[in-house]
């Protein structure tokens, strides 16, 4: 499911990132790559940008971009 559909407090594992070269490149630089566990800090009640936690980092992410990131709620296998 897309990251954009997740609710505050949920965690999931990034499985796939779609989108153009620029979008992917920017996400990669910030450490948002396949196999990473992310947690939603604020889903902004379903509209507007989200705040996600990637390890110790907090990242504000536009909803459009969040629709391009596909995650698995089962989490990453260790």
């Amino acid at each position, binding site marked *: 499911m897309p990251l954009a559909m997740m609710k505050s407090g949920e965690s999931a594992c990034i499985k796939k990132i779609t989108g153009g*070269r*620029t*979008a992917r*490149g*920017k*996400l*990669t*630089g*910030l*450490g948002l*790559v*396949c*196999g990473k566990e992310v947690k939603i*800090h*604020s889903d*902004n*009640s379903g*509209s*507007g*940008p989200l*705040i996600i936690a*990637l*390890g*110790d*980092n*907090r*990242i*504000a*992410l*536009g909803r*459009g*971009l969040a629709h391009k990131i596909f995650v698995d709620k089962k989490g990453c296998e260790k």
Partner: protein
Amino acid sequence: MALKKKKKCSNQIKIALAGNPNSGKTTIFNELTGARQHVGNWPGVTVEKKTGSAYYNNCSLQVVDLPGTYSLGAYSEDEIVARDFLTSDDYDLVLNIINSGSLERNLYFTVQLLEMGVDLIAVLNMADEARKKGIKIDHKILSRMLGVPVVETVASKGKGVENLLAETVENQGLQKDQLKINYGFEIEDLISQIISQLEKSNIQDSVNKRWLAVKLIERDPEAVKLLEREVSKKSAKKIKSLIAKTELKAELDFDSIIIDKKYEFINNIVRKSVTRPAPEEEPDNISDKIDNVVTNKYLGIPIFMTVMWVIFQLTFTLGDPLIGYIETFFEFSGALIGSFLTGFGFSSLIVSFVSDGIIGGVGSVLVFIPNIFLLFLGIAVLEDTGYMSRAAYVMDKVMSKLGLHGKSFIPMIIGFGCNVPGVMATRTLDSKRDRIISILINPLMSCSARLPVYVVFAGALFPNHGGLVVFSLYLMGILLAVIMAGVFNKFLIKGERSHFVMELPPYRLPTFKGVVIHMWEKVGAFIKKAGTIIFSVAVLIWVMANLPVGVEYASAESLIGRFGQLAAPIFAPLGFGSWQAASSLVFGILAKEVVVSTLGVVYAAGEGSLRTVLAANFSPLAAYSFLAMVLIYTPCAATLGAIKSETQSWKWPIISAVYLFVLAWVVSFIIYQGGLLLGIGV
């Protein structure tokens, strides 16, 4: 610190500071060079290259501070500045500044540099924060696995900087092997095929072939350009089709595999060199708690408004009594110097030059030092705590209705200080369209130079509602900016929409030193401006007020009087058709403070302060209309210059000069004529 053996420096060593945004590069730059460059707790503070120098053990170092970047991909103008410098080879050593608290992500950039064959020192900055979180990094393992020296620093406290200098001098000129990550059988095979093709096509030796090959497989546009520059058309085409064919045959996404392998390499390093407490033992994260409130869906915008209101109140309420003291000082010294000069038998012309020209002109602006000081104190605190990027997040919803996104809000906040850095801060936006719109609306953010005009008029004509009047002008600016952004977005400027993604750094306590440096710089710049451009214009106006010879000082027949009369009819329908007002506006384009200093010179009839004269010459309605004009009309020369250099064309400064003048005229017209109709403030 252990004594290092002394190494001779034959030439100056050129070092560059590079790394992720907000990792502390500029803080280290300032520590190394004694410079006072702008530091702030949000990503994207530095947008241009800055150079300084440092000395250590008889070695002279040239230090270059670069904008932060997450990768060499370079998606925005500031990142391009960093990428272009780092790929230029115009340096001996890179100090790669790393935020120790997020080693993994920072190393992604480090790895890119190492693959390019850059000589670097890994600087583990913010060691204090990592320690607080219980993160331990084994330097030995990290250094061995990366193949580079590792130094730990706490730049904000100046710790480890001496050691960093020693390591820098020690490691200059050491050539290390380029880092090679194993990308797996298919890709490695392709890489060697490309390399042999490149060799066959007689590519220059200086080009790093393996690096180029990997970049070509990633379809990096810059690498493709480099290839087309370096080899014949035929060879370039051959290599490109080789990559396309191999990838198709392998049925793999090489680009993703390369990224995965890089992160695999990094993860392995992190696993072996970093130990951190189990999740349940980690200390509470205060930043998250603050964020829960500050970025709350309903509270976010009201909190932001409150913050701006507090800064505003601080600037005016606290500043006002101080203005009084300085004003008295200037009046007193003006009178004293005047009588002193007269007593010594100087001609009345010289006395008038000093008391009307200099004190009436420059003095009337310098009075506002306390306000400027307080305003920048507020902005410095906003920048240093980390609230800036939260404001961008909170405002994203509003901004996206205008076709922009939250990040475009940061240049607007900076614009409250001064529009020149505001315009420059748009470099962090990655679509050209967002940048142009943001640049065009930035002058509507009421900068500190307009503040003296507001305060003088508010004091003269709205003694009981001064604060409210000035605040309404700030709001008017924001509102117009929002409207104009919407208009430009809808009708004028087309282009791709960009994505909003921005790091929210942890909240940090502003350091006393940081804030003081910040303000000292700004107040210094203000005083310098008063001593140069404002002074020169005041002298010019004074001379014009005395010519032609024999004319009554600052009368309608004087040169300035006649000049003002030429422009005055344009402003007459707005309620301020006097030649004094008109000439102050015309010269105000040189710098907005000049509006006040010009009024100070032309109204310096000797008796009373500027406020009294203004109260006699403006109705409250006309004054408000005049202030709206000053807020909106043509940006100052420095801002127009910045727009020119940022957009690389004359088109945009001309457009902004014209559209803002027209907008100002229309708004003032509505205010004045509307007010007349309703009979308010006449």
